């Protein structure tokens, strides 16, 4: 009964969000440019929820999130380009395949590297990110369709508002339910104190893998959506700075805070685009001077993130409600 009620609630929320945005866009109230930015913000939010699981909840310092985003993007785009055509079902399959590919690579990378601690893990994942950038750059040597450093073209424009809202809600649902399950408790205990968790009989390595792979899957799905939003992929979309972008979002929102990550994703993307509009022509290059200043000031004033530990009601666990 409770499950049914929750499913209905989620469906109503989905229909309302997707419907209203589509209507506003269709009716010409919001111009297509801003709708695209909104879609991008949703995609970034999905990817950020993924890093939030990895870093915020499990406490694994990862500086290579964009690599998994890229793996998902290239996998989904390649499958769609070769076999998918314009079919919506194929699109869903390609997105899931993108997530699957990211998860598979995450397993391979996680097996050796998750034994490293804090900063060393960060550097190893950073290294993995740089290696993947080199791989994307020279991808045309083994698969010409991927385009390599020239960028990948000929991707169908499949990403729409209902798709991104669907995956965003799904990701929030998965994170919330996961964190408030026994898996989630185990994962949080690793972040709080690994040795204590181990003493309580938690197989820390296994749960770290669960956290890492889930987070990377999110990035992979988000990457697939991204590939079909702009219909063009370039290795520079998945470089170190993109990993940093997501990290900044997660930290600004407050580590391990779902609401904060959600708000910070939208805030960050709209800030980047908004400054483009607000700044007078000729001063647009000031954008990247103002943003770091804002970032530094925010960190100095609120080192625990904008939201700290408060959550939106619909993201809280049963216990707190």
């Amino acid at each position, binding site marked *: 009964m409770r499950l049914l009620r929750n499913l209905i609630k989620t469906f109503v929320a989905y229909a309302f969000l997707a419907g209203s945005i589509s209507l506003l866009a269709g009716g010409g109230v919001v111009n297509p440019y801003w709708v695209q930015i909104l879609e991008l913000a949703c995609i970034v939010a999905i990817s950020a929820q993924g890093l939030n699981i990895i870093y915020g909840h499990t406490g694994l310092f990862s500086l290579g999130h964009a690599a998994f985003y890229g793996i998902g993007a290239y996998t989904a785009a390649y499958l769609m380009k070769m076999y998918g055509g314009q079919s919506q079902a194929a699109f869903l399959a390609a997105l899931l395949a993108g997530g699957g590919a990211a998860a598979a690579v995450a397993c391979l990378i996680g097996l050796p590297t998750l034994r*490293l601690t804090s900063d060393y893990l960060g550097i190893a994942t950073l290294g993995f990110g740089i290696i993947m950038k080199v791989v994307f750059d020279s991808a045309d040597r083994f698969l010409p369709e991927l385009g390599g450093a020239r960028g990948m073209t000929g991707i169908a424009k499949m990403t729409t508002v209902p798709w991104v809202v669907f995956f965003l809600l799904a990701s929030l649902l998965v994170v919330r339910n996961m964190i408030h399950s026994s898996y989630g408790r185990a994962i949080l205990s690793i972040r709080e104190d690994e040795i204590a968790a181990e003493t309580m009989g938690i197989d820390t390595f296994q749960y770290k893998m669960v956290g890492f792979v889930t987070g990377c899957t999110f990035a992979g799905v988000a990457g697939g959506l991204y590939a079909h939003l702009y219909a063009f992929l370039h290795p520079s979309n998945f470089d*170190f700075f993109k990993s940093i972008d997501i990290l900044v979002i997660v930290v600004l929102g407050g580590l391990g805070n779902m609401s904060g990550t959600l708000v910070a994703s939208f805030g960050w993307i709209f800030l980047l685009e908004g400054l483009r509009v607000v700044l007078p022509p000729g001063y647009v290059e000031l954008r*990247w001077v103002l943003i770091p200043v804002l970032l530094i000031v925010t960190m100095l004033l609120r080192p625990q993130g904008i939201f700290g530990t408060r959550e939106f009601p619909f993201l809280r666990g049963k216990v707190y409600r």
Partner: protein
Amino acid sequence: MEYFLQQVINGLQIGFVYALIALGYTMVYGIVRLINFAHGDVFMIGAFIGLYAVERYQWPLTAVFVSAVVGCTILAVLIEQLAYRPLRHAPKIASLITAIGVSLFLEYFTSLRQVFGPNFYSFPRPFAVVSWNWHGILVTNIQAVIFFVTVFCLLLLQFIVFRTKMGRAMRAVSFDYVTAGLMGVNVNMVISFTFGLGAALAGVGGVLYGIAYPQVNTFMGFMPGLKAFTAAVLGGIGNIPGAVLGALIMGQSETMVSAYVSSAYRDGIAFVILILVLLWKPTGILGTPRTEKV
């Protein structure tokens, strides 16, 4: 064989520059456990100060180095006091994000047209290039300058860290800053000094880089910075000889891959080596394993 030895020499050239940057990372990390992402950009500022000193004011070589050292030291101490010090007791990630913010700020602020500008600038050679041919291997006086300046800096650093009072304070703070503070060490000053010392070396590195690869740009600090940091981790972070060793390995691997495989893989190889080494020794080649205490 000559080709191989020639590549070894080229690898040493870049390796020494990486070593100068890596030392700053390793010292700062050893003391405050912060990956100072802005360090690569301090290196860039050093190169630009060198550029102005050589091109606009035509100072002698020693004055060029001194100006870069002074400029970078002041900048790094300012950064430490304004951006990192208020966050010393905040969660570590807050300082890291701030460091990234400082790095982006330095890159984009200096690329404004009113500051240095966004273009690539050619770095004039401050002296005529002479090259010696030794059994088919070319060695230039640029490489000789890089070698001697780096070795001089390393010896000086070794002296400061192991033979002076300040060096002893640095080692004490890096071992345990709370206890060091209780023993009367001025922790704030030691941390500022460490940032300044690292930046001074990066300044020297920036000028050398400008002389050896005569093109500078405000975004040039990013990749060398990242590789130098990787080198520091490779050698065992917090360990001074380790940073130099890591940097030399980094320089060699990069040069060898460009020479024998493809320059497309140049940026990747260093990190492949890093991951392999970390799997074998999780704290780097010369790093000492730290046992976790409950």
